[in-house]
């Protein structure tokens, strides 16, 4: 019975709209048209290609970072860790703006010359870098957690028995880490696979993932048929990935009771070099793009534009001041505080919805029956549904209703729910049934059992899940989904509005708004970090 509310929610707001749009647009015969096959082949190939490369690059940075965070303690560790997590919550508009303001023309043209790069190659590299920027935190968290849980006694015994470092790695560490490695790889791959905004904003011509091609076919070139076909393909792949994912996650939880190896400061010279180099690399890679926006939002760069020389370079708060001015007297003007309040309000509702739905689902999945095991991957499916097609499905299913602002947190909940369930599930599974039974035998009411046994264990996991849902909503995943009421713009919407017209003030205000979002996001991440449930909360 516990899975009924979440399943009902998914049925109404996910499967029903999906069915509606497929019912309208899907035609199996179109699979066999030669032109369609060519497009499907080309787009799928590129999608896999870029996702594979992005995943490899993410691991190249993520694995050493996971070792860094799980083995060593050093000054500024929690801040650096939070820093790697911030990009995951940022909307693509902001990340693209950050990359663009960092890899400006002067900088990149010198790279062009050194490596003799074509602009297209450069754009492709930019996509890969942006994906790495987004997803490294997944590897850090999942692999880092697994590393931290390795029982140090096993390694010690193997050493005593004469195994060298390589053998320990191959026969003990790798097999124990394998589920974490594979599941984080799958998750990273899934995010890269459905990438949309990054590709559209940084990629330029000829870089179309499935999601981008669906957008083009559904809304620009009107070929809903092909769009439906492409999104069916994307859904099938996502289903395969999520089935693999939930299978591996279940395996991870059957591991022996975690023991945490304490972190320690680097001792040997080698370790010191490793920690220093990794900190430096992470600092440069994550801080530079992030800091470029606040810096840009405070800098006046008007001086060398046009034919005037009187205006000077320098620091300015103009862009922030201008945020409070409705220059055009526009009906749709929104003060920055109001945009922040809208964003925070929708985020709070998303937390409420996804916790209310995720809690019973996680309960059910903590001790799953066979039927519930089958349902498990379905929960992850919304992550791979094309936002464009879902938007059209919503339209067909709910008509005028979708103009209601309540649909914004509902759409965000669809995306946040899988994460919330994954965060709650291990905590719930760890509550010993005997404690509940003992409390009940001693005469505690069911509520009192929940209050005294479950709640203390659950509260921290719930807080971390809540913070996660909160940031998913702040970052506006799947924002293209809906018909919007212009009176309720969120921060990402406000940024996009500023960037849609020419003018120095517009650009400056966009970076100022992005800075505001950056601050809100970083604060949320720091709260997540503080509340994580004994370091074992999965994603």
């Amino acid at each position: 019975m516990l899975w009924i509310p979440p399943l009902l929610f998914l049925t109404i707001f996910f499967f029903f709209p999906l069915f509606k749009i497929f019912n309208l647009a899907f035609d199996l015969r179109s699979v066999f048209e030669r032109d369609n096959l060519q497009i499907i082949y080309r787009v799928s190939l590129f999608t896999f290609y870029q996702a594979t490369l992005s995943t490899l690059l993410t691991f190249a940075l993520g694995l050493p970072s996971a070792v860094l965070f799980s083995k060593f303690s050093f000054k500024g560790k929690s801040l650096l860790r939070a820093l790697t997590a911030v990009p995951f919550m940022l909307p693509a508009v902001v990340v693209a703006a950050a990359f663009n303001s960092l890899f400006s023309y002067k900088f990149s043209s010198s790279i062009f010359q050194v490596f003799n790069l074509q602009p297209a190659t450069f754009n492709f590299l930019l996509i890969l870098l942006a994906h790495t920027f987004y997803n490294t935190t997944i590897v850090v968290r999942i692999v880092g957690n697994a590393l931290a849980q390795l029982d140090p006694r096993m390694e010690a015994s193997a050493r005593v028995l004469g195994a060298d470092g390589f053998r320990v790695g191959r026969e003990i560490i790798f097999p124990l880490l394998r589920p974490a490695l594979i599941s984080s790889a799958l998750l990273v791959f899934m995010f890269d696979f459905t990438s949309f905004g990054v590709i559209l904003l940084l990629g330029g011509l000829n870089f179309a993932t499935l999601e981008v091609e669906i957008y083009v076919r559904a809304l620009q070139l009107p070929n809903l048929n092909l769009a439906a076909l492409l999104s069916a393909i994307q859904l099938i792949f996502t289903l395969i990935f999520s089935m693999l994912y939930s299978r591996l996650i279940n395996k991870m939880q059957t591991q022996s009771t975690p023991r945490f190896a304490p972190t320690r400061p680097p001792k040997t010279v080698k370790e010191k070099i490793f920690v220093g180099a990794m900190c430096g690399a992470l600092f440069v890679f994550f801080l530079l793009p992030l800091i470029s926006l606040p810096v840009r939002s405070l800098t006046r760069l008007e001086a060398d534009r046009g034919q005037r020389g009187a205006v000077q370079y320098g620091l300015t708060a103009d862009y922030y001041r201008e945020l409070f001015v409705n220059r055009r007297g526009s009906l749709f003007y929104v003060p920055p505080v109001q945009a922040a309040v809208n964003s925070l309000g929708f985020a709070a509702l998303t937390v409420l919805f996804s916790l209310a739905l995720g809690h019973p689902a996680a309960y059910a999945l903590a001790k799953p029956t066979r039927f519930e095991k089958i349902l498990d991957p379905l929960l992850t499916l919304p992550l791979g549904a094309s936002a464009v097609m879902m938007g059209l499905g919503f339209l067909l299913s709910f008509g005028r209703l979708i103009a209601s602002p309540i649909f914004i947190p509902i759409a965000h909940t669809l995306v946040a729910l899988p994460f919330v369930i994954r965060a709650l599930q291990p905590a719930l599974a760890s509550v010993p049934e005997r404690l509940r039974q003992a409390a009940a035998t001693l005469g505690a009411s069911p509520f009192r059992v929940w209050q005294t046994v479950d709640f203390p264990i659950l509260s921290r996991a719930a807080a971390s899940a809540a913070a996660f849902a909160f940031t998913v909503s702040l970052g506006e995943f799947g924002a293209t989904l809906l018909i919007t009421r212009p009176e309720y713009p969120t921060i990402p919407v406000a940024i996009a509005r500023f960037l849609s017209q020419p003018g120095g003030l517009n650009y400056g205000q966009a970076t100022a708004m992005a800075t505001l979002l950056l601050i809100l996001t970083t604060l949320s991440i720091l709260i997540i970090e503080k509340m994580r449930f004994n370091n074992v909360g999965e994603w």
Partner: protein
Amino acid sequence: MKKIFLLLISLLISLLSACAPKTPTTLTVITHDSFSVSEEVVKIFEDANQAKVVFLQGGDAGAALNKAVLSKDAPLADVMFGADNTFLSRALDAGIFEPYDSPALKDVPAEFQLDGEHRALPIDYGDVCINYDVKYFAENRLAVPASFEDLLKPEYNGLLVVENPAVSSPGLAFMLATRAYFGDGYLDYWKSLKANDAVVVDGWETAYYTNFSASSGHGAQPMVVSYASSPAAEVFFAEEPPSEAPTASIVAPNMCFRQIEFAGILKNGKNRALAEKFIDFMLSRTFQEDLPLNMFVYPVNQTAKLPDVFTQHAQSATQPAALSYEEIAANRDAWIEAWTQAMK
């Protein structure tokens, strides 16, 4: 269990409908995301008609139109604004609009009234042209190109950034201008343009703010496909209004494409009388004079006065590219597809 399901659904629906607009005197208008209007102007209409106007935004121009088409049996709104001449026939073929011969059309020149049946009524227009960085051309003593052919000259190698016509509306407009000028030879022209290192990016935002050298992004290209009104926006949205715009448009004959935006009364809408009044209002001087500074477009009503920043800094194409909307409708997708293939 079935009961619980029904209960939940009805609860949900009542919750949702509580938030949805539903009073009888409400007029709903669906537009694209770039739409903007002054608060006081809307208030004038609301006060005069004891009505409340609710605006909905449905994504970019293409997305908003497609949503209107998909929901034509149970329309989301009473009035739709924002289908332009590159999308017009899709709206007309889908039959989403009801004809309305507004008396206010008398002030609108015939060249804008593309639909003889008055299902789609012109509201505003804008010219998509190449913008250039005035300072760059002055400092490098470079002549401003005066024709499409000029852009192929070696001195303009790598200096132009354009948008992908498959996803960007100014990108499409610019491609249509080349199609109008070169006919079928437009693909060869684009191949030569590519050989001269013209840069193609997906969206206007990237082209203007990342690639264009005269924007705040300080990019590499001193020429960008944008609007003839963009220089006025650069002045209006400058921290300290300059006497000269930092950018200007190339408005040479045939090099610009004129986008005309239309509004129409949606079929099966609930409020025909009020919708008619709103269309009249959109064509009135009050609304038309408010358009330029809100959306940086030109009013179609010839009696409307332009703001100073427009008369001083915005340019208008003298002889925009000529392509009928029927011709665009018939070939649009094939042209884009061929262009995409040619630019690989």
